[in-house]
């Protein structure tokens, strides 16, 4: 690329999620979404990997929901967010402090292990690389 005009109109980045079910008797029921688009909804019996393309400059909202866990029967049932990478950069678990886990046990510590019914979410509310700049404390990010 020799000059500004040669930049592509649209650039894509990949988002990869690797999710592990954790259970002894009953596999977890899970819903996985990126920007409200459902990637998976159902019973997760084995490790699942998702890879989607996403517009470079668009915000990213990832949510993973654990549903209908019966605490009296499913002691071990959980979902482990093994890792999430965006454009080959490891985001989870490294930046798990940026995630929010809303659940029925009011467990508030950011985590990649979902043992309670609820929604884990990562809200990247600006272009990924701007978010990464701020999250990794790269100093000022000036606004025009």
């Amino acid at each position, binding site marked *: *690329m020799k000059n*500004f005009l040669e930049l592509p109109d649209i650039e894509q980045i990949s988002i990869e999620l690797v999710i592990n079910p954790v259970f002894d008797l009953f596999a977890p029921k899970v819903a996985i979404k990126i920007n409200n688009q459902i990637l998976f909804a159902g019973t997760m019996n084995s490790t699942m990997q998702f890879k989607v393309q996403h517009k470079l400059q668009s915000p990213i909202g990832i949510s993973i929901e654990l549903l209908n866990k019966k605490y009296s029967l499913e002691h071990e049932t959980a979902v482990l967010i093994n890792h999430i990478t965006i454009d080959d950069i490891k985001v989870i678990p490294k930046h798990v402090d940026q995630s929010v886990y809303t659940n029925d046990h009011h467990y508030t510590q950011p985590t990649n292990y979902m043992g309670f019914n609820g929604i884990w979410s990562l809200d990247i509310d600006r272009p*990924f690389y701007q978010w990464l700049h701020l999250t990794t404390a790269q100093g000022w990010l000036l606004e025009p």
Partner: protein
Amino acid sequence: MSLAENFCSSPWFHMQITANGKYQYCRWARPIEDSQYQHPLEFFQKGMGTIRQQLLAGELPQDCEQCKVMEQHNKVSGRQRQLLKTGIVLERFEKTLMSSTFFEKFKQSHGTGSTDLKPVDWQIHLGNFCNSGCVFCTPDASSRLAQEFVKLKIISTAPRHTWTDDPQQIDQFIELLANTPNLAYLHFIGGETLITPAFGVILQRMIDAGVAARISIGFTTNLTVWRQEIVDLLVQFREVNLGMSVECLDSVNDYVRWPSQIITVQSIMDQWIKLSRSHGWITTLRVTPTCLTVSRLLSVYQYAYHEQIGVESCNFLEDPAHLRINVLPLGIRNSIADSFETWIAQQVSTGEQVINTRDPNQARASVLQDAASYVNYLRTAHDETHRLADLIRYLKLLETSRNNSVLNYLPEYEEFFRTAGY
């Protein structure tokens, strides 16, 4: 030639005002000829259009070469620092450029190079009020040196008064700042900032205009004076970046930053560091390495590493040419580089490049990185020993008014200096 090699985002948010009130597009660039523009905003939006056009075309403006030299020697360049402020990093250039907060503004400048933006990051030269006569300085930046140069007949008249003597120009400047919604950073240099009347005036006006609490201030001091009334103004700003000028921590500093005394310099430096820590300010030692000080520069890195504060030099010294580091012969340079390398090897380094060199959490890594860039420069910069005669002529002339001798400070260079008639 590629966009990644040459592009810089600085002209979309930064400019500087020189001591004589002229406008420049960058604090790192070589000074350019007088511009036709009378108002800083007009200069920024229109006058810098050619620079922006060149950068968008992937070309290197001729006055931007200093940044290329820094990058060649693995020193974090002004370009890298400025790119980072807009979210752009060279290792993922294309994607971070397209993700930048300024991307749409870059696009808008295509064609004429003009912009509707206002500068939000300033370097402001306050004038040449200064109580020091550093050997590498110029009359434009030191009133004391100006007087000495007149006396020594190096110049015929001292520079005229600075732009900050003109209340109308200050009013115009303050009005522009007060009407810049995303104003982020003002860096003041002198002269010696603390004794420059306009420094306190502008700080007070910024406070009165209600912008102090939302902007960062930076300034550089020569560690020879203290003014509590300035400190009282500084604490009202959101953030302070303190630059403390020192070349080394022994008496060679006295010779080069004449007529300072290292004992006083260190005492005042201790006070600033204590104050900075109590307010969470960002502190940096500012060095201007020359052939006279590079052999003692390691003391600054060692001190900074110990205190976990940064070290910053604007670039590899270009002017005055006779004080460039590569005036020293390669044998001496390699010996200095060896001592740097030995020390660097004894410290713990992550090896990752730190671009945000003012991040206090990365101060030590940043110090090692900057020291390593001087190792690279010492070993590889082309030979300019032919300038030794100019250096000796200049030092001998200065010493006639200062009644000192460089050999009392740097006896190890006696044999070398004698070869050029010292």
